[in-house]
């Protein structure tokens, strides 16, 4: 499968890392999901615009930057709102 010999200990190490990242992502699941959804939506709208109105490709670069900036900007308040019930400043 890997094209070279791999030991069980190596496999266990990969498994530990992968499952660790999985647990971490699961912890922040809703926020990760929200960020992915915001980015995918904005970038998808850009792709649709450029597919059907090729004139908009003139602004390919600024629009791509805008998608990234707006995603991060939107996730600041959204992330704060979503984490508030579990946050230490909320008395927990």
């Amino acid at each position: 499968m890997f094209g070279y010999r791999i030991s069980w200990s190596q496999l266990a190490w990969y498994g530990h890392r992968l499952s660790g990242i999985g647990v971490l992502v699961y912890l922040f699941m809703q926020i990760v999901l929200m960020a992915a959804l915001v980015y995918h939506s904005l970038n998808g709208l850009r792709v649709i615009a450029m597919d059907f109105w090729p004139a908009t490709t003139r602004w390919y670069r600024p629009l791509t930057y805008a998608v990234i900036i707006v995603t991060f900007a939107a996730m600041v308040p959204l992330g704060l709102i979503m984490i508030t019930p579990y946050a230490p400043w909320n008395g927990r």
Partner: protein
Amino acid sequence: MAIGRKIWPVQGDPLRRNPSRAARPRPSEPGFERWMWYFTRISGLLLVLLAMGHMGIMHVLVQLTGQEINFAFVLARWGNPFWRIYDLLLLVLALAHGVNGARIIIGDYIERGGLRSLLMGILLAVTFVWLLLGIFVILTFNPDGAPAIGPFS
């Protein structure tokens, strides 16, 4: 000052030139792949509204109004047929849009052969089970017949 590189007007069919340079060009021959190309874009537009609405209500507005999502919340929500149809539409469109995307990604990275067939088969089987399970729950959920919640209740 011109912002960005000028790649318009395009030569030939603009939909084939893939000016977005992010997704794929529209397939040249009519058929399944071209249908899916349009489906991805149209369902994507609808999903911006449906999925954003879902996340906005269930994970943002709920927090802002100091509510909690529990069994009573779900009962009240699915007591209204509008939200059942909304959730059904979201389930079917999101699953079809996402699975088609996964199908294309598998096709892009895994060469023809046993592994690709295996992955496509697993994808199809999981999709089928997920779709049936989701539709079954949304359509048949009956608050009166709902059991007491939790293993210790």
